[in-house]
């Protein structure tokens, strides 16, 4: 990483002696000023005996590259506050964007044909459509918790499950559940409807697991960074401070696809063969990977069924910028590209009998 120019450091020091420290973490004056403001607010809220010393300590930690979210301990996600801890991946704003978009589609019944392929009109009769959602590689549990908060009103018969291989992450997810929903009368309802289970996604599912994880919506933000990309394309604060387990798929899973795509192969298999979900939404790392995953999805489907595959960009609800791709042709199928930004997630909608 290139060194920060001295002029920038001098400019930062004019505003505050703490700013150059934070600048080493964020590299632009504007974001450093914002971070200093947030750190100050955080220290004020904590009411420690010597706030100035504590603030200096936090800025020194930030200078080493420690992510702000680990220092402050939380990251806003939608209307929730998600606790963060070293050893668990920090929720990203792109993840927030597609989760909110998916919730909107479900709330506004734009995906209705899925729940009853025979006739969408039937849905009107059942005022309590059941909705089951499973999130793989849940980490902090941000996706299940946000979906719960956005969907529980419209879908009283909702159940959301988050699965992860790491006990550490599962403990944090449970903490987040109680931290965000553990007050007042919503408490009991949230604790019964949102669950976190330990699961290695590559293990063969037992029959009881196959039953309990059966769902309508399968969503995941799996590790998708290649070893090479990890070494060259990640920022220092990600590489040195966030768990590699959540970022790069372990090499033990041998398969025919590229090592960074192994999770997608498994997710598509779960979607089609084992969990019978109608919607599958997976976050991807870049354009090339998105196209590979879309191709896998198209080739993976049961012959004779009609699957819809879409690619969503970073902000699926925004209008696309000028002269960007709006549609792709992959293996003879049209794929719609929604929103603006880079390719960020692949959406698959399958007809089920």
């Amino acid at each position, binding site marked *: 990483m290139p060194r920060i120019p001295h002029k920038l450091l001098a400019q930062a020091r004019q505003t505050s002696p703490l700013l150059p420290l934070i600048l080493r973490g964020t590299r632009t004056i504007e974001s450093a000023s914002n971070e200093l403001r947030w750190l100050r607010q955080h220290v004020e809220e904590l009411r420690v005996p010597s706030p100035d010393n504590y603030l200096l300590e936090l800025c020194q930690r930030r200078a080493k590259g420690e992510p702000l979210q680990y220092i402050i301990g939380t990251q*806003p996600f939608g209307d929730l506050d998600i606790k963060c801890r070293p050893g668990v991946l920090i929720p990203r704003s792109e993840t927030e964007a597609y989760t909110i978009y998916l919730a909107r589609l479900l709330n506004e019944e734009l995906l209705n044909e899925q729940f009853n392929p025979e006739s969408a009109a039937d849905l009107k009769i059942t005022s309590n459509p059941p909705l089951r959602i499973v999130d793989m590689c849940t980490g902090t549990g941000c996706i299940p918790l946000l979906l719960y908060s956005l969907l529980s009103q419209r879908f009283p018969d909702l159940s959301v499950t988050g699965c992860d291989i790491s006990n550490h992450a599962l403990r944090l997810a449970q903490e987040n559940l109680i931290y965000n929903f553990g007050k007042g009368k919503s408490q009991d309802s949230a604790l019964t409807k949102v669950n976190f289970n330990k699961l290695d996604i590559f293990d063969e599912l037992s029959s009881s697991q196959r039953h309990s994880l059966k769902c309508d919506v399968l969503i995941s933000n799996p590790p998708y960074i290649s070893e090479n990309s990890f070494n060259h394309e990640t*920022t220092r604060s*990600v590489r040195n401070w966030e768990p590699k387990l959540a970022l790069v798929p372990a090499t033990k899973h041998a398969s025919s696809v590229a090592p960074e795509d192994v999770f997608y192969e498994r997710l598509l298999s779960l979607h089609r063969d084992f969990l019978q979900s109608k919607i599958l939404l997976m976050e991807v790392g870049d354009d090339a990977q998105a196209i590979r995953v879309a191709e896998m999805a198209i080739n993976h489907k049961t012959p004779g069924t009609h699957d819809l595959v879409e690619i969503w960009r970073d902000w699926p609800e925004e209008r696309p910028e000028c002269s960007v791709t709006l549609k792709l042709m992959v293996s003879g199928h049209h794929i719609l590209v929604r929103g603006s930004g880079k390719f960020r997630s692949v959406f698959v909608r399958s007809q089920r009998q």
Partner: protein
Amino acid sequence: MFGAPWICRRCINTYLKPGRRRLIRFASNESHGAFSPVLLARARNMASEHDRLTEQTAETFDAKIQKRIGELKRVTEALREWEASQNAIEELHALLRDPTTDEELRELASEDMASTRTELDTLSQNLATSLTPKHPFEDMPCLMEIRPGAGGGEAAIFASDLLRMYKAYCARKNFRLSIMKYETSDGDNGPGGEPPLSEAILEIESPGAYGQLRSEAGVHRVQRVPATETKGRTHTSAVSVLVLPSLPVTGSDGMSMSETDLNDPESDYYVNPTDVRVDVMRARGAGGQHVNTTDSAVRLTHVPTNTVVSMQESRSQHKNREKAWQVLRSRLAQARREAREDEVMKLRRGVMGVAKMGRENKVRTYNWGQQRVTDHRSGLSVYNLDDVMDGGDELDKVIDSVKTWMGEQEMQMLLAEEEEANTTSKKK
């Protein structure tokens, strides 16, 4: 020529200087006992409509009619009171003119007359105020934007002083205030060591805040020796304050903005999403899991009017986006209303010939040397600058004087408009 027996040369020089004339208001505080017949006719019309509608709703309930009745009630009641007072005066007159009444009664009558006359004055005032249409944003909560203007660092310091003043004022008035945006710029630090303010947006969430604070919009001028000044010269700087209606999104104290209002293209509050460009910080490189930046800044650009709103106050991009939309809607609603008022003003200017009080004009001067605050609209000067800067009673006085002045202006406009309408209808 002048009321005083003599005027010293110094005063003549000061007060007849060409620039000075601006301090003279060309309006008097005296109310007129006689009430304009034109306005009276209008009031009578509204009262009869009110009675008619009340009869109608006695049988069937209709929400729209009820709303109209509510609007007309003020005028009707004021009119009734005024008429009652008018009748009382006539009776007293008759009593006084009648030669057969005895001395005692005559004395009582003349005393009564004086008090009834003053009562009539206030009632006429009431009637006139009730006839002027209420500002559509009057009951809404508001956003207040404070921006330093000319004057560099000193203007920024004064801007933060004004911010403190409004915070104190709102606390006293029990208005719920939150700081939506507090942006600082690079530059020399203020006396307290904080970086200079470049833009602040306050959100005052209590209903009726707009009506109370709308007099604060405009350019505030300050004359003092800046803290950064070494030689002790007095500088003049300016700070501009904008007051925008805050459009409540969901039901809050019964002021809910219905979805139809937000989506109705005709409504002031409608913003077409295709007209707005959203800019967010884009990650260099791959994004997603590759980076964990805290960049949550959102910038909305409304292309047709070139209005730009940037928000980076919160760590959540989602929240910044919501707040930015709220500010954008408020600014556009205000701009649209001002544009319509401008058009109406242009028509009226031909009738009235009064200069428009635009955003560019200075509304108030704060002079530290003389400890004086002068509002140029109502003409009021108070000499307790410190109390004003603490948001105390003196500030209340100033704001109330401006509100009265604005009310009078509107009344005069109304009068002129009615007379214009009358003359044109007579011509037909």
